């Protein structure tokens, strides 16, 4: 009698554990699967490229090849020709981003909380956002010359607008309920800003920064293509016009890696400071 009871009891408790054990590795398997498939996809793409280039279906004079690109990348890394352009691009990108963040966020917060002011500048922000900023490039060059200043201005131009817009949206939709809680507890204005308004808005600002970083990087490269400066963008252009396709592709690869790394970094910051936002 007791034995049967125990047995059925064991069976009952065994079932859910089994289910969980199936569930957990499955989700892990899925994550691993997408990683494996992603890497496989890249390798396959490179393989096809290599086969097309080696077999002469496409001329490697024009298309380079994965092996050629890897070789050029190694050479550029070891002989140091890569570092100056990387530093130059990162410098104009970094300075431009810093300026965008320092100005766009406070201005966005103010505009978000002041409806009259916001409605006054809203059409301007819309124009800046919808007209492709590249058309302003000749004007920017005319105003700021063809050196560093113009490149930074273009980064700011492309990054500050999306950041400004998402900050305005965040400040505008700041949840009244949260603010009311602080008010009911007689929290001071400064304390409310620091402990409620800022954390409530932060996730939206961070996703604005993510957007701005992408646009800012494009801005930095575009500026170099037009202004023929020392950065990675102009390096690609110079290498292409010299028919150094392996080197050009290697530089593109470096740009891609930098873009991905910066995005990962922003994602890391988002997970660290706004971890609660996706679940609520």
């Amino acid at each position, binding site marked *: 009698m007791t034995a049967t009871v125990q047995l059925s009891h064991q069976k009952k408790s065994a079932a859910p554990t089994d289910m969980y054990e199936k569930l957990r590795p499955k989700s892990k398997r899925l994550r691993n699967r997408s990683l494996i498939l992603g890497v496989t996809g890249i390798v396959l793409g490179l393989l096809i490229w290599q086969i097309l280039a080696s077999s002469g279906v496409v001329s490697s004079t024009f298309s380079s090849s994965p092996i050629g690109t890897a070789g050029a990348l190694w050479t550029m890394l070891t002989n140091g020709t890569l570092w100056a352009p990387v530093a130059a691009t990162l410098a104009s990108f970094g300075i431009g981003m810093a300026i965008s963040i320092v100005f766009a966020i406070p201005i966005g917060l103010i505009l978000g909380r002041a409806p009259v002011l916001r409605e006054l500048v809203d059409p301007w922000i819309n124009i800046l956002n919808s007209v492709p900023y590249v058309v302003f490039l000749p004007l920017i060059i005319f105003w700021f010359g063809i050196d560093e200043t113009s490149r930074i201005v273009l980064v700011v131009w492309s990054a500050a607008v999306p950041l400004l817009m998402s900050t305005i949206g965040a400040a505008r939709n700041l949840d009244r*309920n*949260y603010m*009311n*809680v*602080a*008010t*009911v*507890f*007689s*929290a*001071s204005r400064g*304390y409310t800003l620091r*402990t*409620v308004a800022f*954390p*409530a808005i*932060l996730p939206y600002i961070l996703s604005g920064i993510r957007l701005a970083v992408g646009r800012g990087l494009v801005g930095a490269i575009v500026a170099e293509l037009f202004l023929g400066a020392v950065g990675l963008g102009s390096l690609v252009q110079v290498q292409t016009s010299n028919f150094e396709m392996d080197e050009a592709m290697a530089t593109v690869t470096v740009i891609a890696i930098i873009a991905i790394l910066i995005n990962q970094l922003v994602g890391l910051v988002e997970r660290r400071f706004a971890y*609660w*936002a996706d*679940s*609520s």
Partner: protein
Amino acid sequence: MNDSSALLEVRDLKLGHHSKRNGKLSLAVSGLDFDIRKNELIVAVGPSGCGKTTFLKAVAGLHPVLSGELKLDGKQITGPGVDRSMVFQDSSLFPWLTVMENIVYGLKAQKRYDAAGKARAEWLLDLVGLAGRGKAHPSELSGGMAQRVNLARALATDPELILLDEPFAALDAQTREVMQEELLRIWQSGGATAGKTAIFITHDVYEAVFLADRVVVFSAGPAHVAEIVDVTFDRPRSPELKRSPEFLRQADEILSLVMSQSWAKERMVTA
């Protein structure tokens, strides 16, 4: 109710909202008149949109008084104060803080977070049945648990008057029953939460009768007092009370009062 001195005096109170579109004033409360004694648990019921939340916000100091008296301890309410706290209709826990950080938020905001405050917060966490969950985040809590934390947060500052705006409305019927019993248990537990004065808003007349010392029935908007019903069941009250004929009779009486208010709305406009 040995101490029957009025804690909150409401005299010919008028409250309103200015429309965002045209700035026109619409009244939410007009000619509201009643007293709340110390240590009373008052439940306010009334038709939807009649002005209950507006009234509660005015008591909290979140909403300006147009005219009339709204006096706490003999002093007109002109803004929020450390003597009041509020549990909002929708769970308004800060999702970026842990459960414990939420509970002590008021104490920290009022610069009163010391060893005693810390001990009180721990005690409250235990009282609302969440001992050991202090480091959890609100997103990890069920709706019922979240409202317990909300309650603990409101109690943490040891307010004289606690305002609850339909705190259990979003919960399923079963959890709501449990929470009502929990609230009474906390209320009747003695110690640091004993004998608090409270205003509790609800649409649920059974909840009203189960919790209240007195039920204030608001008229259709703009709200004034339609009726005040004394609920004299002994405390501590147990869940069985909800099945007694006298309980059901009183709940029925209040329900028909609220219903008649909803129907009377048209005729009430000029009153």
